[in-house]
């Protein structure tokens, strides 16, 4: 450690040290007099004998800027008078104030700004957790421990909702249940003569159902993994001692599964906290606000101080819940270490329930994947909703020309905006994913190779931090940092660069973890072997480290790419029409009530995300389940 603290002289110092070293070789008498100096040179040479230290230092600066500075700026914005608020805050712009905290948390409109959305967020999250557990737990058990029909097929099929953007299902819901509260095309039920009441068409009920179906795969994956690694012998020993199956379930299986279950609950909670798209599509028409949409509204109405407070609150809740999760995971390790050899898990025959169980799984698949996608597809090829006569079907919304509409007079595939949005998606998300993949590998390299312990632990933590911050709050942090020129960095709002930066930082948790584990697995030996044979740092990187880590690099790039394609909450804050990506483009189409076009765009996104995920699974021979869970 000491060695590195004393090896940070400036550039001039370095050259003078070199000179000194040269002269000291020639004159051993000086050497004796200045014993301290050679020692400095020595530490310097050892410390910088490879560029790991330099790269490490650069990475520390980079991530401090990409992660810590935006968040600090955001928090600072919450307590500083913003432009235009001087009169209301009764203070000069740029001075300290409690005005925003007061306004958001205690003023007469605090109810609408914060408390009501908070209660909505919490009640939606509770509902989502309850429903997804009651669907996910039985399915997880059926998939991992029973002889249900089509187990393998269901194991993939039931995860599909998680591969698709959550608001795909919100759009499908709107297509089916939309009523006269909002304008535009009728919902299917409405046109069949039944007007869905507001509580069914919009607000808490549909939001909860849709998010529950979307996050049930979480439970299936986490709980299923825990069940699979659960040693049947534990169960069997209890049976042999005379316990009934009920007692076994309650006293042996349940306590051991509890950590996995709690982990799933908290992850779902954290995800619900940052969920924007579904709430926007189904909550806003009836003024049902959650924290994320309230945050979005305060940004749209230029209340950046209030937005900062809200984002801070979301961040705080997110951090607390994930810290609890980290705690639980540590607790659960305690259980895991007890296990001896490889766990054996046995399949329970379902007997007469085999068929009903399979039907249950099929039903869930139908409701959570089949029906919504079918509705969306049909909605893009039908002129009048819910009219199934042949002449009502058309491909106009996809490839039509000279349509009789006010704007958007061609099918969506012929609209230049779609292609520019698609190109933006590829460009922005692709570049950001490439950056985060490369940076992830570099972080892994530095974390594993750096001899300076605080650098590795700092990098490890700072790159994981965005995971704790819901995307929309993170986006607001970037907005407040890059909205104006700060020092040498110009205002980036409105450029593609801000999206790339934010997305890169947002994806670092995944890519850095991939990078660290890949480098850990590789170990130091292959690189040191190259070093011994005489390879310098660059040569070792190019001929040994990067070629070996090719696979990890591909994964570290593709996974963020897929999650980036379907991401919405980050873009909705930071994108402007010229930097529209597919997700924000479809949102703009919805806002202008081009339902079919919007549905078509969302289908394109869903297809990209789905096939992308399959491709990654095939390339890397991994299971999606392993990438989850944290």
């Amino acid at each position: 450690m000491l060695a590195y603290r004393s090896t940070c002289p400036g550039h001039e110092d370095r050259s003078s040290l070199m000179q000194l070293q040269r002269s000291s070789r020639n004159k051993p008498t000086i050497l004796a007099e200045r014993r301290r100096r050679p020692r400095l040179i020595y530490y310097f040479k050892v410390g910088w004998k490879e560029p790991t230290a330099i790269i490490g230092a650069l990475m520390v600066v980079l991530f401090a800027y990409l992660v810590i500075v935006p968040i600090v700026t955001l928090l600072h914005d919450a307590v500083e008078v913003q432009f235009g608020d001087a009169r209301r805050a009764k203070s000069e712009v740029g001075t300290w104030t409690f005005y925003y905290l007061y306004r958001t948390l205690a003023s007469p409109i605090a109810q609408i700004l914060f408390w009501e959305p908070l209660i909505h967020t919490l009640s939606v999250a509770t509902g989502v957790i309850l429903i997804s557990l009651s669907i996910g737990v039985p399915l997880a058990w059926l998939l991992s421990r029973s002889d249900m029909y089509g187990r393998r097929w269901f194991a993939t099929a039931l995860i599909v909702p998680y591969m698709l953007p959550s608001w795909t299902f919100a759009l499908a819901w709107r297509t089916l249940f939309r009523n006269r509260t909002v304008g535009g095309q009728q919902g299917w039920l409405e046109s069949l003569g039944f007007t869905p009441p507001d509580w069914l068409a919009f607000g808490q009920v549909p939001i909860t159902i849709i998010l529950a179906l979307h996050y049930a795969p979480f439970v299936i994956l986490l709980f299923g993994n825990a069940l699979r690694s659960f040693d049947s012998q534990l169960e069997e020993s209890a049976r042999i001692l005379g316990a009934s199956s009920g007692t076994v379930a309650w006293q042996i299986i349940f306590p051991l599964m509890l950590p996995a279950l709690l982990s799933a609950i908290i992850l779902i909670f954290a995800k619900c906290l940052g969920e924007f798209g579904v709430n926007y599509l189904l909550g806003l028409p009836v003024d049902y606000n959650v924290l994320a949409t309230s945050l979005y509204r305060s940004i749209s109405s230029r209340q950046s101080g209030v937005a900062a407070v809200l984002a801070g609150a979301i961040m705080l809740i997110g951090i607390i819940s994930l810290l609890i999760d980290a705690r639980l995971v540590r607790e659960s390790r305690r259980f895991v270490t007890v296990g001896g050899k490889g766990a054996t898990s046995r399949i329970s025959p379902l007997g007469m329930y085999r068929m009903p169980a399979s039907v249950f799984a099929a039903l869930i698949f139908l409701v959570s994947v089949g029906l919504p996608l079918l509705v969306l597809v049909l909605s893009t090829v039908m002129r009048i909703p819910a009219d199934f006569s042949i002449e009502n079907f058309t491909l106009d919304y996809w490839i039509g020309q000279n349509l009789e509409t006010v704007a958007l007079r061609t099918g969506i595939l012929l609209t230049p905006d779609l292609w520019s949005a698609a190109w933006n998606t590829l460009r922005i998300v692709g570049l950001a994913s490439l950056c985060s993949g490369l940076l992830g590998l570099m972080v892994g390299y530095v974390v594993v190779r750096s001899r300076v312990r605080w650098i590795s632990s700092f990098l490890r933590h700072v790159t994981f931090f965005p995971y704790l911050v819901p995307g929309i709050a993170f986006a607001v942090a970037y907005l407040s940092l890059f909205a104006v020129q700060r020092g040498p960095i110009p205002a980036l709002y409105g450029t593609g660069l801000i999206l790339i930066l934010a997305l890169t930082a947002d994806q670092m948790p995944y890519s850095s973890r991939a990078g660290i584990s890949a480098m850990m697995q590789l170990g130091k030996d292959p690189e040191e072997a190259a070093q011994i044979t005489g390879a310098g740092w660059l040569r070792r990187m190019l001929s040994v480290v990067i070629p070996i880590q090719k696979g990890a690099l591909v994964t570290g790039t593709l996974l963020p790419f897929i999650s980036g394609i379907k991401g919405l909450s980050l873009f909705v804050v930071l994108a402007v029409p010229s930097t529209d990506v597919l997700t924000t483009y479809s949102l703009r189409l919805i806002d202008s009530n081009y339902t079919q076009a919007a549905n078509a765009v969302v289908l394109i996104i869903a297809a990209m995300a789905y096939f992308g995920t399959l491709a990654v699974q095939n390339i890397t021979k991994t299971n999606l389940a392993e990438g989850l869970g944290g």
Partner: protein
Amino acid sequence: MPTISLSRVTKSYDDIVPAVSDLDLEIGHGEFMCLLGPSGCGKSTTLRVIAGLENLTEGEIRIGGRVLDSSEQGIFVPPEKRGAGLVFQSYALWPHLTVERNVSFGLRLRKIPTVERKQRVAFVMETLGIAQFRNRYPSQLSGGQQQRVALARMLVVEPNVLLLDEPLSNLDAKLRLKMRAELKRIHAEFGTTIVFVTHDQWEAMTLSTRIAVMNEGSLQQVGSPDEIYNSPSNLFVAEFVGNPPINIIPVIDDDGEELSLIMREFVDRTFNKNGKIGSVGIRPEAIQLSANNPSGNFRCLASQAKVSGILPTGGSWIVELDIAGSPLFVSMIEPPEFDSGELAYFQVDQTGLHLFNLDGKRVAC
């Protein structure tokens, strides 16, 4: 002139206890030097320090007269410029390169002309018997073959010293024996100076020209295998080397055990060291055991003891004697003429005794 010289070498990590402390060692040209010791004794650290993968905290390292690492003089030569070779315990073959590319890597770096490079690679691979695998990838090779590739990769660049870090520990017993012979042949053929790290005393005995025994970061003894075995400089070396292990009989602080009493009486009578001896070591094979009372000899320690166990090991027998509660192990190459539970006579010639003082240091007889 020694090829490698370590003087006052100390390496400490963040801990207070240094991994290696104050190590002085000279390794001559063409030697096969073994660093022997239990795990965690600092032998691998010593190797890594020679290779330059770790820097020194104190001291100096020279190879062929050239200072490579000295914090006092401010000199540190990075590993890639030291011209040493290191075979890792894990072999560390590059999984993305074929066997031939693995072997030729170092020569390519040195920009050796293609013709010469091919010759040298072919020669080394031929010598090590891996020529037929040249187009395979490391994952398609067995452990022993990987081992040879790792060796070939380092030998081909003609290193000034070849460092081997427990290279045989990942091989099964049969293969290990074969590779041991192979290593000895390679050493003879290439004439390279070899520094070999192992915790296996057998390996050290059979392979090396000299052995350096280490414990807890410091050097215990340096000498030929013969010296290490026959005149261990302290109790640690005596106990670490030899299988079955040496019998150590305390003659001070003995709680009045009978064996200790007999031994003290004999040592006092024979060596006249009055009270300076702390313990006595007897190698199991230095003890003669018979069913009948042998003709007594003044210069021999002889007594009767109960046989508490006979452990056949195939070609030889290990006999456990019970002398009033304390065990004494004897190894025999003749089948014992008695059974477990019977009485037997043992005798030890005084030349078979190793004397250690109160600090555990060897005392000359």
